[in-house]
């Protein structure tokens, strides 16, 4: 089940993502414990807060390029982590918030599982649509060559900002789902290690493919589960795999297999012509 969750925000976009996930989770947890507003308000507020945070952080970050972009995002993200960590009265500091009340409908394991599954499916479908839309295609073009995009009349920064906002919205949704599942939040959700893990998932699965991050998440979680039984140093195995991956499959596992199939598909297309 936690796997499903990881998949839910399986990082379509390669940003420092955990923070927005955490913000979504914290927002909904705070709304449900500290206010008496209806539950759905909290559920909506999670993604919205994550989106707003995404917009603010993104607004600064798109002004910078590549490495600086990542660094600024990590530092701004860490700022949010520090707030959650220190502000005991509101966020419970490193204890986090536990026992977030859920409506009766979602209180059983089964129901919450299906709830998560449904939302996840909707999100995946929405993301798939977005990736395949003109917006998504333009975004891929920006990834390939931002300078050329400007030359064909695309406001690159604004487009990137929109992408961040959309991605953070989905991260916020995932954060809400996490709370539905775990009924608690803690500062680790906002910590950069989590973002790194998501990033590795994308890398492992193949970042230029839609399903790649899902596969990457599956690999990491199963590594943790199965290798974790034998040794607590399962990350060592992960490290070795990553090194091998960078050398032999620079496009990720999914990218590798797609690459294998592409010539085949082309042949079929040629024959049918």
């Amino acid at each position, binding site marked *: 089940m936690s796997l499903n969750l990881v998949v839910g925000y399986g990082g379509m976009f390669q940003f420092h993502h955990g923070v927005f996930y955490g913000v979504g989770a914290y927002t909904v947890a705070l709304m449900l414990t500290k206010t008496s507003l209806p539950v759905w308000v909290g559920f909506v507020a999670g993604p919205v807060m994550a989106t707003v945070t995404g917009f603010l952080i993104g607004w600064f970050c798109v002004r910078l390029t590549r490495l600086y972009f990542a660094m600024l995002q990590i530092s701004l993200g860490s700022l949010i982590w520090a707030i959650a960590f220190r502000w005991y009265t509101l966020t419970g500091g490193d204890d986090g918030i536990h026992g977030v009340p859920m409506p009766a409908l979602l209180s059983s394991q089964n129901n919450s599982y299906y709830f998560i599954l449904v939302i996840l499916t909707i999100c995946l479908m929405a993301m798939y*649509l977005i990736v395949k839309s*003109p917006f998504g295609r*333009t975004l891929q073009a920006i990834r390939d060559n931002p300078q*050329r995009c400007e030359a*064909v009349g695309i406001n690159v920064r604004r487009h990137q900002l929109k992408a961040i906002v959309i991605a953070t919205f989905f991260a916020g949704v995932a954060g809400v789902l996490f709370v539905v599942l775990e009924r608690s939040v803690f500062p680790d959700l906002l910590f950069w290690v989590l973002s790194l893990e998501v990033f590795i998932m994308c890398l492992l699965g193949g970042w230029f493919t839609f399903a790649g991050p899902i596969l990457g998440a599956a690999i990491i979680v199963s590594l943790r589960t199965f290798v974790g039984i034998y040794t607590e140093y399962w990350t060592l195995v992960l490290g070795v795999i990553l090194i091998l991956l960078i050398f032999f499959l620079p496009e990720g596992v999914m990218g590798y297999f797609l690459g294998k199939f592409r010539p085949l598909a082309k042949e079929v*297309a040629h024959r049918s012509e």
Partner: protein
Amino acid sequence: MLRVEAVEKSFDDFKAVNGANLVVGKGELVAVIGPNGAGKTTLFNLITGQLKPDEGRITFKGEDIGGLPPYEICKKGIARSFQIVNIFPRLTVFENVQVAVLSQQRKSSELLHPAHNIAVEETEVILESVGLSGKALEVAGSLSHGDQKILEIAIALGNEPELLILDEPTAGMSPEETSATMELIKRLADTRGLTILFCEHDMEVVFSVAQSIMVMHQGRTLVQAEPQEVRRNKEVQEAYLGGE
């Protein structure tokens, strides 16, 4: 249509462009020539907004466009290709051009319609006109250098420009590819009624195709005139033609 007046640009202490003047009239095919480092590419970068001019005025259809960001300039009707191949290497040939067409149609931000249904016809027409239809589904990065240069032009056409700027469209091409490309450029100018500004190394190519030639030397405009007159110009002969 396009007017460049006394434009200057320096990098640190080096004056890359130091008093460039250029006039491009509607429907003309204008060439910029000059030895390596004369500032041709820098001039083009100033016109299309990749760089901001330090001094001088650049106007397009009477409107001052100096220092605007590239995407704004593009929307005003100027599109360009690049000297060093500058495409989207991971997208297919079709998608490369489609991105430009989508941008032209202001559909880049559309979220909910699948992209493979949009702007298909326009994109295919362009690929047809430059002769890349057969390679539409290939990944752009895997094309030959010559085809990538053609794709450069195709992407620029996707913006349906009034003024098309080509920075050394035949750089690195074989003689056969070069003449085929110049044919293509002439044909585009005729059939689409495009105004084209380009720069080029190959002197023969330039003198046979261009209606007007601007000669640059050390960042400065020596002269802009018809090919015959340029050939006769003393200063040009000393600076460029004689020097080869």
